């Protein structure tokens, strides 16, 4: 009996070791590419391929200043403007529409709801050609305002979906009390609803920011002037222009992933929630 139990413990312990080993291998699998960028960004070009596993103590910080100066800095700011702009515009429109769809009453309510959900099925590639046509005709290329609205419109269906979902779980008693006290519908919206749906807005804003920051196709097509480029496009061009300056390229990539990565580091739960909120369709 004693030996039987001892064997069980050994098996259990071995299972645990295997489990952790597997987890660690998986971790290396998922993190290595980023680790590679991190250590390569401070290496000289030759060192990058010589030893891809260990950092070199010969720090070449000029990779970063080089990258920043040759446009990445400017593009970082551009992406920031677009991403923040998209977050704000999306939030504004989505809140208003979500409010209308859940708290107001009008005839075609169901139809309007479906109308917005439809948008989730539209791939951006299918509309980019007519949009390019529109912008060419009206000379609206390089127009950040248009681009911000374009991004917003694209994220609106999902954001509206998230906010309406959230609103359904908020009891109307608060608003009814306010109305009895003489509140107008606008006051109800601003003073009661908006503060209450802040978590939903935050969740949606995270993915709007991230997806806009990371977006490539639209930014490539809608922006022509090199000083107005976003960071995704900029990185691509960097590869083309400075083909063999790998160190600077690694530094550029590191700079580009900094905002999303830091957001993830500090708001991990919310970022995961935000990016996977599209799953609840």
């Amino acid at each position, binding site marked *: 009996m004693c030996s039987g139990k001892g064997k069980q413990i050994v098996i259990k312990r071995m299972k645990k070791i295997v489990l952790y080993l597997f987890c660690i291998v998986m*971790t290396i699998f998922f993190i290595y590419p980023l680790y590679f960028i991190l250590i390569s960004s401070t290496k000289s070009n030759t060192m990058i391929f010589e030893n*891809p596993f260990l950092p070199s103590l010969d720090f070449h910080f000029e990779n970063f200043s080089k990258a920043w100066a040759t446009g990445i800095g400017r593009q970082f700011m551009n992406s920031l403007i677009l991403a923040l702009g998209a977050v704000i515009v999306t939030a504004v429109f989505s809140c208003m529409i979500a409010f209308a769809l859940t708290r107001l*009453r009008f005839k075609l309510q169901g139809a309007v709801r479906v109308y917005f959900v*439809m948008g989730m*099925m539209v791939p951006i*590639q299918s509309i980019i050609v007519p949009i390019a046509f529109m912008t060419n005709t009206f000379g609206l290329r390089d127009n950040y305002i248009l681009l911000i609205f374009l991004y917003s419109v694209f994220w609106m269906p999902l954001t509206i979906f998230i906010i309406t979902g959230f609103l359904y779980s908020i009891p109307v008693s608060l608003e009814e009390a306010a109305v009895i006290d003489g509140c107008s519908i606008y006051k109800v919206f601003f003073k009661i609803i908006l503060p209450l749906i802040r978590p939903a807005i935050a969740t949606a804003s995270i993915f709007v920011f991230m997806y806009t920051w990371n977006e*490539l196709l639209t930014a490539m097509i809608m922006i022509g002037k090199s000083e107005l480029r976003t960071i995704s496009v900029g990185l691509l061009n960097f590869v083309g222009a400075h083909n063999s300056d790998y160190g600077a390229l690694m530094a550029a990539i590191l700079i580009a992933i900094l905002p999303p*990565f830091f957001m993830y580091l500090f708001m991990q739960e919310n970022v995961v929630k935000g990016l996977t909120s599209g*799953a609840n369709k």
Partner: protein
Amino acid sequence: MEKIRRDRKAILVFLLPGLLVYTILLILPIGGSLILGFFKWNGIRGAEMTFVGIENFVAVYQDPSFWHSMKNILWFLVLTLFTQLPIGLLLAVMLSGQFKGYKFFKAAYFIPQVVSTTVVGLIWYFILMPVGVLNEILEILGLGMLIHNWLVEPSTAMTSIILINTWCGIGFHMATSYAAIQALPSDVIEAAVLDGCTGLRKVRYIIVPMIWQSIVSSIVIIVTAVLKTFDLVYVMTSGGPNGLTDVPSTLLYKQAFKYSNFGRASAIGVILFILSVLCTILSLRITKREAIEY
């Protein structure tokens, strides 16, 4: 309260601005895409736009590179469905045991989702270069005969891109499956385990049916996302060499911005849209099951 809810002016104020912008920038272009598909236009302002009927659509139908891109995207779909979701699910099941340190691993596995596909493409491009890390590791391990020019050779190019996309997406499905598993009532699962259903059988007969909604959702997301793939392919190979790794999106991009064939690109866009809708409906139909009550 009811009366205020029906206030016409308020309804318009809240609904109209967003509705307008949404219609002009998202809905109208869908129609515009269809219309443009019937024309021949080179994209330059003021240039001639000639009506060519269904010539663009026919040309796309007859274009071998289009069918090649469709073959690529089909392979993309199949491989992704059979790797990304199962691995993500398995990781989620494993982590739901909540052993010490699971939070760290969960956070690590999700990281690829946070980084943009452009960056993912660039990083892996370096790893898969002939002088890159992967080949170096193979050399070190004595597996030198497995060395390939991963992104260039016909036998490995598309699959490499697909597997990198899988690498990127596993974290997403792990997170959603994990959340779904967490929401399950533990007493039901415990009862099953007590009855002798453990390990893989537990996954197959207990967990999967109970989180089926989440799995269906993941399938739909994979299907729609794969059809739209552009960033990763474009960044890693631009659909090349010579259209080897083209997918419909990169084909569309090339037609419009390399060959200045906006009409043809539009036609591809329309086809993509229809495909997207069809695939979504199809995958919802195929995976329909009775919801399990518990």
